[in-house]
């Protein structure tokens, strides 16, 4: 067993520098790497390119990096929950590339799996396809999309073992598995870190080979964006 554990978030983020490109898991505030984001704020690394489905809200998630103006460019699919984001984007302070959600997932997986490019129908005939190659297959037009290239990937899992094997919970899974191994260094934070052999080999969502560093985070806030309930009557 190859041990991937590091003692804390500081060790986990060693080597993160200005101008880097980061992949960050999560959908809305669900399954985001809270501890890595807090450390990025503390490190004051600037001029980042962040690839993540959303940009957080004003005071949580990637919104914390936006507040400090640490992000130069954001690649996302949906950014509708963040007023500061909209302000920076419309003023031109922040460069923004919006791409289809499925394309975002697959460009991550392509990087993980060593595919330089693939053809998808998503975005054909729209702004998204501008400047990209398009091509017909079986009578339908497709766009050539390319694998992401990133320096660090920040992943949030539910449970992990010393070997870096991961299990996610509910919809907190989302982009996290697809981003594992998609950057040069993949850093995972987990709520529960167990010894190798504790997890059923048949039920691992992401094998440890895709990750370089794993640490246990504490005190997860897991903020809910839209608390919707029904009454018990």
């Amino acid at each position, binding site marked *: 067993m190859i041990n991937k554990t590091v003692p804390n978030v500081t060790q986990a983020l060693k080597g993160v520098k200005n101008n880097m490109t980061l992949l960050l898991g999560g*959908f*809305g*505030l*669900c*399954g985001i790497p809270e501890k890595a984001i807090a450390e990025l704020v503390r490190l004051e690394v600037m001029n980042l390119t962040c690839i993540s*489905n959303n940009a957080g809200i004003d005071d949580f998630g990637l919104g914390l990096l936006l507040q400090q103006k640490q992000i130069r460019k954001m690649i*996302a*699919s*949906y*950014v*509708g*929950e963040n007023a500061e984001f*909209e302000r920076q*984007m*419309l003023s031109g302070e922040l460069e*923004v590339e*919006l*791409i*289809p*959600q*499925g*394309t*975002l*997932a*697959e460009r*991550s*997986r392509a990087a993980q799996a060593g595919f330089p490019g693939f053809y*998808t*129908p*998503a*975005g*054909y*005939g*729209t*702004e*998204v396809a501008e400047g990209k190659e398009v091509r017909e297959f079986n009578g339908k037009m497709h766009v050539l999309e390319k694998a992401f290239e990133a320096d660090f990937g920040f992943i949030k899992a*539910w449970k992990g073992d010393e070997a870096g094997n991961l299990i*996610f*919970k*509910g*919809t*907190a*899974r*989302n*982009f*996290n*598995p*697809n981003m594992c191994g998609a950057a040069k260094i993949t850093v995972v934070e987990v709520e529960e870190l167990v010894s190798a052999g504790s997890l059923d080999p048949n039920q691992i*969502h992401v094998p440890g080979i895709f990750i370089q560093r794993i640490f246990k985070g504490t005190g997860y806030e*897991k*903020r*809910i*964006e*839209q*608390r*919707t*309930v*029904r*009454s*018990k009557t």
Partner: protein
Amino acid sequence: MALDKNGIAQRIAQELKHGYYVNLGIGIPTLVVNYIPKNIDVEFQSENGVLGMGPFPFEGDEDADIINAGKQTITTLKGASFFDSSTSFAMIRGKHVDLTILGAMEVSETGDIANWKIPGKMVKGMGGAMDLVASAENIIVAMMHTNRAGMSKLLKSCSLPLTGVGCVKKIVTELAFLEIGPTGFILLETAPGVTVEQVIQATQGNISVANDVCEMSF
């Protein structure tokens, strides 16, 4: 009398068939779950990674790790599953999802749809909508027929940046149920109390009237 949002959802729900996997967009489409016909089984997919979505949780049972694409806390039903985003879009792009119901700012007579951006004003992003409209064989749009200024949103061609090209099949508005045909919109049903003339007036794009046009029945 024009339909309200629930009425639109109720009419769309009549298009559900037994065995359908359905992806519901944010807004009016979400309301469709309240009108599923009796005696059919359908399953709801949410692109953030869940199949078999159930109702909202009881108060106190919310789980931050279990949400839908609208970021709302939800529950799951028997037979549900969670999966990653790449698998979720495999379901969508691979045409395993049978029906997509989503909102729109504009639809053109050729089935183009715009729903993600108003240049210089509002840019929320396309989320999963571009993947959905590019792949789904069966797309129903839930939208208002006109904007607040009374201008038609069913156009000859869209003025806003497109989400997809020639993809919309059916449209339900507060005034009518229409489909896209070779020559433009086809009026199939009018909302209760709405006249054919009213629908034609409110439609900027080319519109024809089906021979068997009738009033919606609920």
